[in-house]
């Protein structure tokens, strides 16, 4: 009996061990090595050695300040636009979808089964100089005769918005779908207008979804380099482009590692501040 109890106590740890070990070795330990590398000094020829080289941080922040700010700006804009596109869509599926809900949801995620890079390249042809979007905007005089969409920040933000949209739609849908419609009805029975019922009942109840959706969109967007590379020019490069080329082209590992660390720290600080501002700490914790 005692043996059986011991086995029961041990069982969860045996189930967890292989998977968590994998995550520890290939997710947590690498974070340590990222920090370790970021304080190294030297050159590729002579090798990099650990030096407590904090200057990697101060130098990289001052050198790549523009790219950092641009990353935050583009990611923030893309998150905002994704929210505006996604909220009504998620609302419509959750409250008007009826028995087609699952199929509609499948339609929403379906486009994201086309490879990320191919999707981004498709935007390259949509926004091309002689493409129909550019021509339409020129026709409406929203774009000057020789104005471009491709190779501008508009194209980069458009690409980022599109590529991370499901991360916004899905959490919004989940939180909206869970709302007890009886509450909305009750508000309207108490003579709240539809708009007021929405603002006072539906919107606050979907706050956890808004919180999750904006974070899940903003975080990958801030670290992206694919859209800026394929749809922009070096003038649109984000911090991800700098990290990627420092690691894989220039092989200046310490500075690249320092930049990665700063990016992660900036995101963590931003998330904490955001959680505080929105007051959803108790909802997510």
């Amino acid at each position, binding site marked *: 009996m005692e043996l059986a109890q011991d086995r*029961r106590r041990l069982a*969860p*740890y045996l*189930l*967890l061990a*292989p*998977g*968590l070990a*994998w*995550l*520890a070795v*290939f*997710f*947590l*330990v*690498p974070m340590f*090595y*990222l920090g*370790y*590398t970021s304080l190294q000094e030297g050159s590729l020829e002579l090798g990099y050695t650990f030096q407590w080289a904090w200057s990697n941080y101060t130098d990289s922040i001052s050198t790549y300040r523009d790219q950092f700010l641009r990353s935050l700006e583009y990611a923030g804009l893309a998150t905002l636009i994704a929210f505006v*596109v996604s909220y*009504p*869509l998620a609302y*419509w*599926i959750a409250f*008007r979808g009826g028995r087609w809900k699952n199929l509609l949801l*499948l*339609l*929403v995620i*379906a*486009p994201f*089964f*086309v490879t*990320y*890079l*191919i*999707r981004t*390249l*498709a*935007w390259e*042809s*949509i926004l*091309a100089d002689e*493409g129909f979007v550019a021509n339409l905007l020129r026709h409406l005089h929203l774009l000057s005769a020789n104005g471009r969409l491709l190779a501008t920040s508009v194209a980069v933000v458009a690409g980022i918005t*599109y590529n991370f949209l499901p991360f916004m739609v899905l959490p919004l849908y989940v939180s909206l779908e869970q709302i007890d419609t*009886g509450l*909305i009805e009750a508000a*309207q029975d108490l003579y709240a207008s*539809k708009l007021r019922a929405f603002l006072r009942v539906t919107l606050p109840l979907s706050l956890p979804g808004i919180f999750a959706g904006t974070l899940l969109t903003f*975080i*990958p967007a801030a*670290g992206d*380099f*694919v859209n800026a590379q*394929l749809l922009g020019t070096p003038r649109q490069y984000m911090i991800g482009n700098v990290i990627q080329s420092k*690691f*894989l082209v220039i092989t200046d590992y310490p500075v690249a*590692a320092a930049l*990665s660390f700063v*990016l992660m720290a900036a995101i963590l600080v931003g998330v904490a501040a955001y959680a505080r501002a929105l007051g959803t700490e108790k909802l997510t914790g």
Partner: protein
Amino acid sequence: MSTATEALPVRRAGQGTLTRLWAWVRHHALTAYAVLALAYLFLPIAIVVLYSFNDPLGRFNYTWEGFTLDNWRNWNHVPGLTDAMVTSLKIAALSSAFATVLGTLIALALVRYNFRGRGATNLLIFVPMTTPEIVMGASLLTLFLNFSIATGFLTIVIAHIMFNISYVVVTVKARLVGFDRHLEEAAMDLFANQWSTFYRVTLPLIAPGILAAGLLAFALSVDDFVITNFNSGATITFPLFVWGAARIGVPPQVNVMGTVIFVVAIGAMLANVVFQQRRAKALTRGAA
């Protein structure tokens, strides 16, 4: 749910045509908006499929020149592309199999046992999903660099298993939460031991969840570019091939493969939905 929205106009019928007109416009405005949003989501996909039938003049497949079936007929005529695809599929098969096993075990532990360290475990599952891919890819590379491990096929597989575990745990857990433990207890009462209970009762019941998780992991692996880019060495996967080709012109055969991946993925998802609905029906019929 629908009664709330349908009952309202009736209740407010006396409020005048203007209010009703406004309600009608608003009702349909939302639908119109949603349809437009869906169209926006599918626009690039339509472009990808359409341009797989394009007959480009130069190396760049950006403008429509004319319809042809040549790209589909000669799908394997681009040097390196087919090999890259095969490499991607191999990596996806290996990494999704491993991640599915490791993730399912974690999900089982989380749902069915109370143990110390649950919070930390949940955190370790959650954090990789919210870490920017570039940071994960870069940090793994620093690990391999510091231990002088050459990057290549194996390091890509290691990386893909790593980022897929979390997605598998979440998917299988969702399925396990609604699981009726009484079925297992019944089997035990009928003198089945723990193992046969697991194989004959538990596993068949959670199999659709595991399958869905495996398919998701496979799809994420085939799609991954950022983490792979950092840990690939000289190995070229399908997304890496596209990345390399983007500068010199992407051959239309890439669109052919993109279309095929899309159709296969949607087919698998639909099949899974239909299969689960049939099973649910069969189960309720059996119970009645």
